[in-house]
């Protein structure tokens, strides 16, 4: 089962490597990983998606909590939440497909953020599933490059992850 774990991490050198190392050391998967500083300079916010059965997830959460650099942690997939992935995708846009790409982009509510004589660079945000669908919809076009930020997530409503 897919889970989204959100972590407040000490903004210290080496902290991220402890989290990543834990996953490789214990044979857990990381599907996506997103990390950046927060409004509190001492903390980074890290969102990662992983898969595993309940037992594995329990171990992952416990092992993460055991790391001294992990200040707080929540499994977002346990409750209502919002998840967003940002994608930048560069496609060959010439001839008849140029219009088609524009139309598809509009349907997905994406934006063309860079236009070249033969290329479009499209920005799209949404759940991972939506981005996958867009990539599938672009199957006809010639995809040159895909960059995704990995999932960033936050709980709905009053629930917050903070100190």
């Amino acid at each position, binding site marked *: 089962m897919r889970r989204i774990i959100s972590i407040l991490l000490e903004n210290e050198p080496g902290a991220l490597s402890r989290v990543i190392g834990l996953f490789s*050391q214990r044979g857990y998967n990381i599907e996506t990983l997103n990390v950046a500083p927060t409004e509190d300079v001492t903390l980074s916010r890290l969102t990662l998606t992983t898969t595993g059965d309940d037992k594995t997830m329990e171990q992952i959460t416990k092992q993460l909590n055991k790391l*001294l650099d992990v200040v*707080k942690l929540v499994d977002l997939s346990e409750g209502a939440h919002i998840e967003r992935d940002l994608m930048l995708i560069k496609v060959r846009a010439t001839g008849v497909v140029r219009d088609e790409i524009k139309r598809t982009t509009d349907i997905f509510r994406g934006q063309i953020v860079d236009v070249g004589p033969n290329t479009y660079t499209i920005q799209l945000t949404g759940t991972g599933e939506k981005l996958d669908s867009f990539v599938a919809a672009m199957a006809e076009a010639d995809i040159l490059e895909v960059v995704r930020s990995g999932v960033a997530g936050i709980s709905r409503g009053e629930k917050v992850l903070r100190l």
Partner: protein
Amino acid sequence: MFVIDFLRGWLPVFTGIRFRAVYLALGGGVASQVPGQVPCSATSTQNLNGYDEGYASGVYVNGRDIVELLSGGEMIAKALEDEGVEFLFGYPGGAVLHIYDALFKTSKVPHVLVRHEQAATHAADGYARATGKPGVVLVTSGPGATNAITGIATAYMDSIPMVVLSGQVATHLIGEDAFQETDMVGISRPIVKHSFMVRHAQDIPAIIRKAFHIATTGRPGPVVIDIPKDCTRPDAKFEYHYPETVKLRSYTPAQRGHTGQIRKAAKLLLSAKRPIIYAGGGVILGESSDLLTTLARQLNYPVTNTLMGLGAYPATDRQFLGMLGMHGFYEANMAMHHSDVILAVGARFDDRVTNTVSRFCPGAKIIHIDIDPTSISKTVAADIPIVGPVQSVLQDLLETIGALQEKDAQQPDAAALGRWWEQIEEWRGKHGLWTGRRYGHSDQIMPQQVIESLYRATGGDAYVTSDVGQHQMFAAQYYKFDKPRRWINSGGLGTMGFGLPSAMGVKLAFPDMEVACVTGEGSIQMNIQELSTCKQYNTPIKIINLRNNALGMVKQWQDMQYEGRYAMSTYEDSLPDFIKLVEAYGHVGMQVTRLEDLDKCMEEAFAMKDRLVFLDIWVDPMEHVYPMHIAPNGAMKDMWLSKNERT
């Protein structure tokens, strides 16, 4: 104005104690501190006048406090003293020379110079296991640090408190593949409880305080502090305060177990018909042997110990079923398999205990007490998990059981318990190690007889360290440990070469106690150079070498699973003359080849109180360790009992 402020701040640093009067006359009571967060590699030319007076080389008054000014190296020396460190095990080298110089000039902490950094970590580890205090190690960068890795991993796997200070190349050289540079924090990351890289010399006292706090609290473990050389330079001095308290926002080990869970556990325990207490190293680390014994006796429940838990419950007690697991006692493994309630205390359901997890103790409800939540339900799911320090949880459990027994007149089912003990005694009588001899008789000395002889010669009261292999299992089975911290071995990592250096550490801690290292000719050669350290620091331990001219445990597996093909498990005729070898190191060597000489030689060796004696005892090379779990796909109850007999 800037000039005055500058002088206020820096005068004392420049001048040390000699100009203190001038400084005070300037009204320096309110002077600013030494500017904060000066990088280690600051190029200022501070205090050139005085590290001839030890710590007193720089002192100034900040408000009403007299504050010492120390270099990074001196701060390390002082902090170790403030932490109450009794021994420092280490090996000098380029990156730690400033630290060694500071230790030489100022420190009251004795330093033990080992012959290989791995031995420094094992010696510190042995010291820690025997005393319960953290072991402390100092090594240089690069090879010094990497040599320490095996010892750090050993301590990590067995949850031993240890602080390892490793030198690092100077800050400006980090990342340049400098001479003797290695990423120690990176290399040690998976095998430490936590690690620190010093970035500013003035952080050293706080980091050392934190390191000791982390290493010794909660589930103990090793902590590495990597220290770039420039952070210890003698000419950069800083205020020294050793913090009294530690605050770590993300580190709060549980102090008590959950009351509701403890109550549930008490009820389940009292309702058990075939109970067993399965106690591990956590009982020893958590100083709870007495409580465990009280609980077991109050309930009259049988107890088994893991390899790491030996001594947590007195081995000579009737209620003790012996060690459990791969080479566990028949009665212990049988009782576990057939139990209906298991009280696991400070144990972690290791694969050397459980055999096949899916077939583990099918009828048992499991209560699991552990300070580390990750140990609970990691391999075997717990029915009643209790996270907390073993000591407070056992205390609460005892009280709860007492209250239940009094108020609700809830008592263990005496009839069921009687039948259970009858069954256990039957198992014990049939295949028990102590009541029914497990080894055959040959015209050679059996390895088990050596351990029994050692037990007699030491009155069962020695500290016994061991290496890894058959001799380790024989020692664990046949030396009846009645007290905690007496059995010192590498259980989790299984590190050959652990025995000799750890014995050294134990002997330094307890010079008046008997310390024996049970080893084999394979393991002993992995750190035999420490015989030299034993000479230098006069640690008259007794080395019991069970000599079977092969890597015994490897050979046993090759006998059992590879049709006797001894792939690289024998030495042909390359073994050294151990007697000459130990004599060359300045010690005493004795060879024993006949059973009738065994006790006499053993006694003779222990009578030489002030000499290290190496007993090279020739044992039957064909002997195997039994019982042995049948794997793969076996349960706890599936064992080989001898070469041709199985359950």
